[in-house]
C-alpha cells in the first residue's frame, strides 16, 4: 500500500478525514514554498499537494493562477519542484504532485516518474490528463510504484466514472463543483452525490476538492469524503500577507482550523 493509503487508513481508524493542502512549488520562492509546506505539516495538514506551476493552468481560478505566475516569474523550474518535494517529504508527510501534462511530457514521462519516486513523491494528480490519453503515464507509474489520481466530475457518466476510477491508485479526486479551483461561500450539493457514485465502484479513498476554504466547510466535506483538499484558501494566506512570516502565521492558523474541521465531520 502507498504512503497515501496508509494516511487514509489511519484517518479512517480515527474516524476523521485526511486533510490535503495544496501549494504551488516555488511560491513565493523555492525556500518560501518549503517553509510554507513545512508549516502546513506542523499545523496538522496530513498530505501535501505540490503543484508544478504552469503557464496555462485551465483548471485553476485566479488565486492559484496568481501564485503560479509569481513562481514562474521567480524562475522556478521543474527540477526545483523535485527538490521541494524531496525537502517536504523529509517531514514525514506524504507528498503528492499536481501537474498539468505538458511539463511532464517535456521532462520525459519515464524520467519524471523515476525522479519523482527518487525524491520521495507518492504520485501525480493530473487535472488535464484523462486515462484515455495516459498510456505512457500508466506504464511509468507502474514501473516506479507511483500513485495515479485522475479526476472525476459531477458531469462524468457512469461508464467514464468507472473507467477513470479503475485507472486510479492511491485515491480518487472528486471535483465538488463544475468549475475551477477557488474557495466558494456555499457548499456544493453535487459533491456528496459524486462521492457516493465513486464509492459504488471502488474501495479507494475519495478526496473532495474545489471550493473548500474554512474549517466548517472541511467538516462538512469530511462528513461524506475520505479526504478534504484545500488549495486557494491556503495560498491566499501568503498572497494577502504583507510579509512571508506574517503569511506563514496566517497559513498555520488556517491549517489548524482545517485540521480541526476534518476531525469534526458533520452530516
Amino acid at each position, binding site marked *: 500500500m502507498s504512503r497515501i493509503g496508509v494516511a487514509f487508513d489511519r484517518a479512517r481508524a480515527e474516524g476523521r478525514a485526511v486533510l490535503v493542502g495544496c501549494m504551488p512549488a516555488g511560491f513565493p520562492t523555492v525556500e518560501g514554498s518549503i517553509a510554507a509546506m513545512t508549516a502546513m505539516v506542523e499545523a496538522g495538514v496530513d498530505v501535501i499537494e505540490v503543484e508544478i506551476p*504552469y*503557464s*496555462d*493552468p*485551465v*483548471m485553476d*481560478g*485566479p488565486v492559484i*493562477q496568481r501564485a503560479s*505566475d509569481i513562481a*514562474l516569474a521567480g524562475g522556478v*523550474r*521543474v527540477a526545483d519542484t523535485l527538490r521541494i518535494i524531496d525537502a517536504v517529504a523529509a517531514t514525514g508527510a506524504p507528498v503528492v504532485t499536481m501537474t*498539468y*501534462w*505538458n*511539463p*511532464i*511530457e*517535456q*521532462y520525459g514521462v519515464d524520467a519524471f516518474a523515476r525522479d519523482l519516486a527518487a525524491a520521495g513523491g507518492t504520485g501525480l494528480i493530473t*487535472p*488535464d*490528463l*484523462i486515462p*484515455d*490519453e495516459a498510456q505512457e503515464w500508466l506504464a511509468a507509474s507502474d514501473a516506479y510504484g507511483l500513485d495515479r489520481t*485522475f*479526476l*472525476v*466530475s*459531477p*458531469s*462524468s*457518466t457512469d461508464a*467514464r466514472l468507472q473507467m*477513470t476510477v479503475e485507472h486510479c491508485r492511491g485515491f480518487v479526486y472528486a*471535483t465538488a*463543483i*463544475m*468549475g*475551477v479551483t477557488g474557495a466558494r461561500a456555499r457548499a456544493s450539493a453535487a459533491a456528496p452525490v459524486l462521492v457516493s457514485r465513486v464509492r459504488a465502484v471502488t474501495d479507494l479513498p475519495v478526496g473532495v476538492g474545489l471550493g473548500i476554504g474554512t474549517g466548517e466547510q472541511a467538516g462538512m466535506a469530511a462528513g461524506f469524503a475520505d479526504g478534504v483538499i484545500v488549495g486557494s484558501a491556503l495560498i491566499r494566506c501568503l498572497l494577502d500577507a504583507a510579509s512571508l512570516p506574517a503569511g506563514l502565521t496566517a497559513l498555520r492558523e488556517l491549517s489548524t482550523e482545517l485540521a480541526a474541521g476534518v476531525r469534526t465531520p458533520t452530516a
Partner: protein
Amino acid sequence: MSVDTPAATGRYPDAAGHFGRFGGRFVPEALVAALDELDDAWRTAMGDESFQTEFAALLRDYAGAPSLLYPARRLSAKIGAQVLLKREDLNHTGAHKVRNVLGQALLTKRMGKRRVIAETGAGQHGVATATAAALFDLECVVYMGAVDTQRQALNVARMRMLGATVVPVTTGSRTLKDAMNEAMRDWVANVDSTHYLIGTAAGPHPFPALVRDFVRGIGDEARQQCLDLVGALPDAVTACVGGGSNALGVFHAFVDDPGVRLYGFEAGGDGPATGRHAASITGGSSGVLHGTRTYVLQDADGQTVESHSISAGLDYPGVGPEHAWLHDTGRATYRPVTDADAMAAFELLCRTEGIIPAIESSHALAGTAAIAPELAAELGREPVVVVNLSGRGDKDVHTAGEYFGVLDKE
C-alpha cells in the same frame, strides 16, 4: 498516396481525435461529457441532409459563398506564377471565419444550448461569433486579452454593437492564449448551458475536425472553380497558418490529389532565428497546449513561450494538430514568412490588384512569391497556384498605415 497519409475521405482523425501522434483530448474530466455531446452532434449533423441544406443556404444567402476565384493577372506577372485568389475576404464579416461560426452556431441550436463563448485575439473571431450569436439569438460572451482590447478598440465596439459581452482577460500575458484559458474556465463552469465556439482548428477533439469540416467548403469550391477556369487542378495551394483553419479549409479538398502541392506559411515575425515569431511548426516542438498535442512554442520545462507577429490573427504559440500531422507526413510544407516580407506582399497586392488584404493573408501572398521560382524551375513552366486570401485588410489599416508611414500626423 500511401495509406497513412491523411486524406479527404475522412480517415483522419481516428475516433478519439488523433492525427497520428497529434491531437486527442488533454482536458479536465469535467469537459469530457460536453465534448462527447459535441462529437455526437457533429457526426450526426455531417450525415444529416437537413443540416447540410440549412448550412449551405446560410453560407450562400448570408455569408456570400461560394467566394470568387479570381485570376490576379497583374500580381501573377509580378511573381511569375498564375495566381488564383480565393476571395474569402469578400465574405460577410470579411474572412473565412464566418463559415466556422455559422456551422457551430447551427450545432449550438441543435444541442439546445442558449449561450456561446469565444476567445479572440485581434477580435475577428469575436466579431464573427457575435455576428452569428445575433443571427441565432444566442447569448454571447467573448474573452479577449486586455492588451488586445486596447489595441483593437474598434473590434470591441463592433462586438458590443452586435450584443456581445466582451471580457478583458488580465491574467498571464493578457493575449490570445490567455483569452483561450479563460474561455476554457468559463466552459468548465457553465458547460450545461454553453457551447465554446472555438475559433480555429485547434483545441481538444472534436474541435480540430469539426472546424475543418465547417471551413472545407473553401477548398471544395476552389477545386471546382480551378477546374472550370483553367481546365486542370492547380500545381499548388497556399495559405497562411496561425491556428490553421483557413489553411485546412482550402487544403482539405486537395489532400488526395497527389499532384497538388500544399504550402502553409507561418508567421515568422522578426525571423525564426530571433526567437520573436509565431512559427510553431518551424520553430516549436511537440507538446500539449489547450487540450491537444501539437507543435508548441515552449521552453525546456514545457512552459508556453509568448509568440510575436505583426499579424494578430497568426499570433498564437500553437497550431492545429492536423497541420502538425500534415507536416510530419510530408503531405504539406510549412515555411515561415517574416513580418517584413508579409508587409511587402500586402503593399504589392494593394498596388497591383486594388485589393487590401488582411496581414494574415499577406503571409500567404509573400510565401507564394517565394516558392514561385522553385515551382517554375521544377515544372518547367509557370505554375498555377491557388492562394487563399483568407481575409480583408480593413481591420489592419491602422497597423499598415503606421508601418508604411502613410498616416497624417495629428
